[in-house]
């Protein structure tokens, strides 16, 4: 049972300050994660509807993410300097630190999508209602779900959920490849489509990368709980590892 301070009831340390500092770091990461989920959803809406207001809000709100990133680094450094965690604690702290890196990259992808949306607003592509914008919306759903599930896997230290997330990343990659194939047909039809097709590709690529980062978070959770480093293990041979 996870307590309010982020520690598990059966796992409390003798030194309650460690529990407090670890709970604070964990809380920061999860807070950062929730804010980034909202950023990704908003960036996707901005891109799929060329909504400049939403795009600018994503760019504006990125400051708060940067602040949390710096707070997380400080909390992480404090844990190493004061408590020198080992074993499961060390693996969990390493996992949180790696998650902060992945989350910061995800936030960067959301800003990149917002930049694309802002650029698209400037030149107003003539094919606004074309199927490719539907693709942005379609790929957002599993990408955000992967991100939310990987955050839940951290929160609950749930290795089963983490393994499922690692496997489900494949589905997102397939969606991305399908979207790129459709985009290529627009290029073949009319060279005037080049600009928005490139922009749309960048947006969709960002969403695919978000899925990859979510997968990375999940793989680190597997390491945290089991001690097995599966970051570079092929998904098909994950079981054998």
């Amino acid at each position: 049972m996870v307590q309010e301070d982020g520690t598990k009831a059966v796992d409390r340390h003798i030194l309650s300050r460690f529990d407090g500092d670890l709970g604070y770091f964990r809380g920061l990461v999860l807070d950062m994660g929730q804010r980034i989920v909202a950023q990704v959803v908003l960036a996707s809406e901005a891109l799929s509807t060329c909504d400049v207001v939403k795009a600018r809000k994503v760019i504006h709100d990125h400051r708060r993410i940067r602040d949390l990133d710096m707070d997380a680094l400080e909390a992480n450094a404090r844990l190493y300097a004061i408590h020198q965690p080992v074993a499961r604690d060390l693996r969990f702290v390493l996992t949180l630190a790696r998650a902060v890196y992945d989350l910061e990259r995800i936030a960067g992808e959301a800003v990149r999508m917002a930049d694309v949306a802002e650029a698209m607003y400037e030149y107003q592509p003539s094919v606004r209602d074309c199927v490719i914008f539907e693709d942005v919306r379609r790929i957002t759903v599993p990408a955000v779900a992967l991100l939310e599930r990987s955050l839940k896997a951290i929160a609950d230290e749930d290795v089963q959920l983490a393994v499922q997330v690692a496997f489900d990343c494949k589905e997102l990659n397939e969606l991305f490849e399908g979207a790129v194939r459709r985009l290529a047909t627009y290029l073949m039809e009319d060279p005037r489509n080049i600009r928005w097709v490139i922009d749309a590709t960048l947006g969709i690529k960002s969403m695919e990368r978000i899925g990859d980062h979510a997968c990375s978070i999940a793989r680190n959770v597997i390491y945290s709980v089991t001690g097995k480093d599966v970051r570079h293990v092929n998904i098909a041979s994950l079981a054998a590892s």
Partner: protein
Amino acid sequence: MTTAETVIADADLVGAKVRSKAGSRPLDNDFKTIGEVRVNDPRMSCTDVNVFYGDKHAIKHDDLDIAQNQVIAMIGPSGCGKSTFLRCLNRMNDTIDICNVTGEIRLDEVDIYDRKLDVVPLRAQVGMVFQKPNPFPKSIYENIAYGPRIHGLAASRAELDEVVERSLAKAGLWEEVKDRLDQPGTGLSGGQQQRLCIARTIAVDPEVILMDEPCSALDPIATAKVEELIDELRENYTIAIVTHSMQQAARVSQRTAYFHLGHLVEVGDTTQIFTNPRHKLTEDYITGRFG
């Protein structure tokens, strides 16, 4: 079973091991140590070692090899038997009347508990450094020269001078004391006294050095110097160290052994023990969940 299910089942197994309630009850007498107790090239080899203090069973059927030119750290809560085990390695427990040791401990194939074996040369071969620095109330020179002299390791004064200089140099103390060798060893700082004791141990040309919490009475700078020294000494000697400092065990050793209530619970590479211990008791102790 799908690949995903296989991974989940595997992870469940590991998780269940970690979450087991083993920490809340004593281990069975037939408990088997987790990890590889044997090594390819052992300097010392212990088999089924038991130690009794009167009726108290302090060490329970422990097996352990100590590899050449390696530092092995012995960790565990107070009263777990790690110092008792260490003291078995050069028969220091013989000095305690009620202490009875059974099992087999070999140093380079020689059974050190053989009744015919003389313990005096054994304790030169397997030297010991204690928690509190204990220099003799003699000059720095005499502290080092005493051992080689009684063991007949130096034929002349010149040879003895050479042994003293070499031992102090190996202990990283020569530069600090070379101009005051005639001054009392007890006049040195705590850290210097401990390095003097290490130099005294080295002077009789041991094969193994046992250290029982050698830094617990030292400040952080003196501790750092002794730790640095341990790392350098590893090149020529085999070292077993008992420590209560997890960080020290992690810093100085290549193998770590965790003791609990007389049982050797787990032994393994230090990195593995401190990043991914396999037994719940080890995990709980080193992470500070009990102690």
